[in-house]
C-alpha cells in the first residue's frame, strides 16, 4: 500500500455516506482523496443488507444493498478515489492529523486539508436497554445476526424472539424464516411500529409472524444458552405489568432496538455535538463547528433511506472541496433551526442564509409521536411564515423533510432563529 503523508480529503468510513463523499470530493477537483475503513472491503452495512428496496430514488431501480454499494464502489474506483481498507482510525486532531492503525500500514499519522466523518451507527445492545435475567449465549443484536447469516453463512439459532419492530428486526424475521428457522413473534414496547409499514406486510404478515405492540421482554431465562424469555405487556409508563407475564421457549433473542451514531472520533476531535440525537451540530453544508471538518450520513442522525445518506455524503464531499478551494466563509451569519410543536429534532441545526443565493436548503426532521391524519408542516420566523407543506400523515419511523426555497432568502437573512412545527 503506497500511502502518502498528505491528502486533500480523508474520508473515515466507506459506507454509503463515505463513498458518495469521496466521489463528490474527487468530482469537485480534489486530487488526493483517501477513503479509510476498518472492514476488509468498502460498502459498509450495505454488504450485509442483502434484501431489496435500495436505490429507488438514486437509480430508479429496486436494488439489493450489495448492488447499491457495488455501483458506488465502481464509481469511486473509476474516478480515482484511493482506498485504505482493514485499517482503524484511532484519532483525528484539531489540525486534521488522522492517526491510523492496521496490519497493512502499521501506525501512521496522515495530514488532511479536510476530513469527512462518515462512521455510521452502532446498534443499541442488551446493556443499553437493561433486560433482567441470566446472561446466556443467544442474545444478539439483529445486525450481528444479519452479518452472520448474510456474510458468514452461519445460522445463529433455531427458535427466535425479536425485540423491537425496527426495519432490521423485521427483515431478519423474514430472512430467518426463509432459512428454515421458527420466529415465534416480534414484540414492540411502543404502541406503534417503529419500522416502515411495507416491512410489516412483506416481512411479517407474508410469513404469518405475529407482531405484538405494547409488549417487552422482561426477563431472559437460560444457563449456557437462552432457553426461554419472559414477555410482559407494558403500562402507560412502558413498565412491565407483572400479572401479564408469559414464558415463551426459544433459543435466540434478537434485539432491534435502535441505533446510536458512532461519534467517538468526532467527540475526541472537539466537534460540538447535538446530544438529543448523538450527532454533530451541522450547518446546511454538513460542516461542523471546526472549519474543514464535515460529517455525513447516519453519523449525523439516523436516516431511513440510503438514497438520502448518499445525497448527504455528496453534499459533504462537495462542501469539503469548496473549503479547500477557499470558497467557504466562516464569518458569515448562521441562523439556528428549532424543533417546534410535535417535532423531535431538525437537521441541520444551523443554516447559512447565503446558501439560499445558490440553492434551496433541505431540512430533515422526525416527529415525536405518530400523527395519523393530514398534517401541515410550517417553517416560520416568529410570526413570519417562510414555507409550509401538507403531509398525509407523520410517523416517527419515517423522516420528514421540507425544502427552504431560494425565495426565502430575505426572511431567513433577517432571522435569528427559524422554527419548524407539524400541526
Amino acid at each position, binding site marked *: 500500500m503506497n500511502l502518502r503523508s498528505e491528502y486533500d480529503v480523508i474520508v473515515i468510513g466507506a459506507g454509503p455516506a463515505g463513498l458518495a463523499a469521496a466521489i463528490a470530493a474527487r468530482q469537485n477537483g480534489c486530487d488526493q482523496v483517501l477513503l479509510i475503513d476498518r472492514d476488509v472491503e468498502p460498502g459498509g452495512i450495505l454488504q450485509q443488507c442483502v434484501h431489496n428496496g435500495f436505490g429507488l430514488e438514486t437509480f430508479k431501480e429496486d436494488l439489493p444493498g450489495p448492488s447499491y454499494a457495488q455501483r458506488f464502489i465502481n464509481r469511486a474506483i473509476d474516478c480515482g478515489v484511493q482506498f485504505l481498507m482493514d485499517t482503524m482510525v484511532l484519532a483525528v486532531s484539531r489540525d486534521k492529523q488522522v492517526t491510523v492503525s492496521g496490519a497493512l500500514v502499521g501506525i501512521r499519522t496522515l495530514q488532511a486539508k479536510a476530513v469527512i466523518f462518515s462512521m455510521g451507527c452502532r446498534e443499541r445492545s442488551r446493556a443499553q436497554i437493561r433486560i433482567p435475567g441470566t446472561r446466556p449465549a443467544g442474545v444478539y443484536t439483529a445486525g450481528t445476526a444479519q452479518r452472520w447469516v448474510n456474510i458468514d453463512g452461519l445460522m445463529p439459532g433455531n427458535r427466535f424472539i425479536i425485540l423491537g419492530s425496527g426495519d432490521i428486526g423485521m427483515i431478519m424475521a423474514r430472512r430467518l424464516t426463509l432459512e428454515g428457522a421458527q420466529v415465534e413473534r416480534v414484540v414492540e414496547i411502543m404502541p406503534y411500529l417503529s419500522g416502515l409499514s*411495507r416491512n410489516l406486510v412483506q416481512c411479517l404478515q407474508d410469513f404469518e409472524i405475529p407482531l405484538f405492540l405494547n409488549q417487552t421482554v422482561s426477563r431472559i431465562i437460560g444457563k449456557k444458552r437462552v432457553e426461554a424469555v419472559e414477555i410482559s405487556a407494558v403500562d402507560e409508563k412502558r413498565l412491565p405489568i407483572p400479572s401479564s407475564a408469559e414464558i415463551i421457549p426459544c433459543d435466540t433473542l434478537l434485539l432491534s432496538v435502535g441505533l446510536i451514531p458512532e461519534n467517538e472520533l468526532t467527540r475526541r476531535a472537539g466537534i460540538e455535538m447535538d446530544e438529543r440525537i448523538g450527532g454533530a451540530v451541522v450547518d446546511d453544508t454538513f460542516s461542523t463547528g471546526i472549519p474543514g471538518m464535515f460529517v455525513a450520513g447516519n453519523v449525523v442522525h439516523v436516516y431511513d433511506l440510503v438514497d438520502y445518506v448518499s445525497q448527504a455524503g455528496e453534499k459533504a464531499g462537495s462542501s469539503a472541496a469548496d473549503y479547500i478551494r477557499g470558497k467557504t466563509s466562516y464569518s458569515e451569519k448562521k441562523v439556528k433551526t428549532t424543533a417546534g410543536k410535535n417535532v423531535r429534532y431538525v437537521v441541520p441545526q444551523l443554516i447559512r442564509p447565503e446558501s439560499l443565493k445558490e440553492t434551496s436548503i433541505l431540512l430533515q426532521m422526525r416527529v415525536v409521536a405518530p400523527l395519523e391524519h393530514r398534517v401541515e408542516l410550517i417553517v416560520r420566523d416568529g410570526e413570519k411564515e417562510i414555507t409550509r407543506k401538507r403531509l398525509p400523515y407523520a410517523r416517527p419511523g419515517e423522516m420528514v423533510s421540507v425544502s427552504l426555497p431560494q425565495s426565502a432568502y430575505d426572511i431567513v437573512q433577517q432571522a435569528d432563529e427559524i422554527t419548524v412545527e407539524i400541526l
Partner: protein
Amino acid sequence: MIEKRELICVTCPRGCRITVEMEDEKIIRILGNTCERGKKYAESEIKDPRRMFASTVRIRNGVHPVLPVTVTQPFPKDRLKDLSAELRKTEVTAPVRMGDVIVKNVLGTGIDVIASRDMESVRS
C-alpha cells in the same frame, strides 16, 4: 355487493394504504395509491401476488463463504420458501460479477437468480 380489500403497498418505502373495491371477484376501483406503481401493485396483489426476493448461496474460493443473490423479477409469493430451499442446494465458484446468472429459469418460472455483487476469488 361491493367487497373492500385493504392493502399496504410494498413497492417503495412510502407504504401507501390502498383500498381495492371488488365486485364479483373483479376490481372496480383502486383508491389511496399515489402513483401508477401502486395501482399495478394492487392489481397484482389481488390476482397473482409477487415479491422481490433476495438471499445468499454458497460460494467456493470467495472472499466470503456466501454470495448475495436476487431475482430478475418479482417472484410468486407462495413459492418463496421453495425458492429459498432451492438456493440452499446451490453452490458457485468465485470470481463472480454483479448480474451474473446463478440459476437460470429457477423452478421453471422464467425468472433468473443473479449475483448482487462482484466477489473476487481469494487466490486471484
